[in-house]
């Protein structure tokens, strides 16, 4: 039981620790030659956003992915040529979420 309590305390301590966003901030502050923003629905949790980031970063040309979960916006950045929008949308679907074109509900 003592071990369990210690483990629980360690988990709670980890919960209280702020996340390290240093690398993300560094990437966000860089300037990129091309960007494209997708509207995505159903991003309800941090794991969800991680899935989308992982899928999009697997595409050639995508160097940084910025996600605004509240607004439902996913922006991909690149210093080379960005992939076709259909490929970007397919990656979002593969992550388990729904991309929406302007004008669609």
């Amino acid at each position, binding site marked *: *039981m003592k071990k*369990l309590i210690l*483990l*629980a305390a360690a*988990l*709670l301590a*980890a*919960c209280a620790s702020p*996340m390290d*966003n240093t690398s*993300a901030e560094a990437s966000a502050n860089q300037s990129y030659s091309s960007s494209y923003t997708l509207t*995505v*629905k*159903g*991003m*309800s*949790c*941090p*794991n969800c*956003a*991680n*899935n*989308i*980031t*992982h*899928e999009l970063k697997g595409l050639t040309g995508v160097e940084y992915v*910025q*996600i*605004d*979960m*509240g*607004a*439902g916006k996913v922006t991909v950045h690149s210093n080379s040529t960005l992939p076709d929008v259909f490929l970007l949308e397919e990656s979002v*679907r*593969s*992550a*388990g*979420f*729904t991309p929406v074109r302007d004008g669609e509900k």
Partner: protein
Amino acid sequence: MPRLVLTTSLLIALAAPAASAQQTNLTPAATTPGDGRIYPETQLRWYSRDGADDVLELNQRLSYGFGGKSAAFLEVPYDFDEGVGDARLGFKHRFLQLDIGSVDTLRVAAFGGLELPTGTDAISTDSVDPFLGAVITSIRGRFGWNAAATLYSTGDNAPITRGPLDVEGELVKLDGSVAWRVDPVEYGADFVAATYLVLDTNAYLGGSDNTEVWMSPGLLYEAPDFALELSLLLPLSQDVAGRPERDYGVLVGLRLLF
């Protein structure tokens, strides 16, 4: 009283689809890892028992995502006194997904598989046993709900051991849960972790002598690539024969996303 508790649990499970959740600590969700992603989950559960030794269990689950809608999973339980239990090999497919807002979603998935006789003699059913279930997950703003029903079938040679899933015959498990995101109140442009208060209700309905209902309040902390779980396991009703009742328990868990 047990009937009232069971009815209440059933009503919670049935009401859940009308509302909207993350995968809580003790209830399945209609979510799957992204295509090609691996999602290991580890849960350590400690139970205090009435007139018997405490129980310490470790449950390992590994999920692998296919195409954004499906996942295969392998679940291996371990009892620190008895050894490895029967592993479950299964498949989950999400056949309905209505993403209705930036955060809001309604998802329905079916799952099923086989329990394999990998366990030690004391805690194995010694047979290949099927299970089949369905789960609804709904998230609306800061609130989420999950509801699941699973049918387990166990062979005739099952020993009466520590848990309700090991007793011979058929058993229906009903799970209902609610999650409330306490932080952040609103998601912003920053990529943040989220903390939830969760409440799981789990009913094991295996007829007389094998019925248990549990209610488990807890915490869930979810970062982009891992999640931490903590729950207090409280029995609301236990009608069990051949094994000691459990007084209460504690769960700590860790999920990783690769």
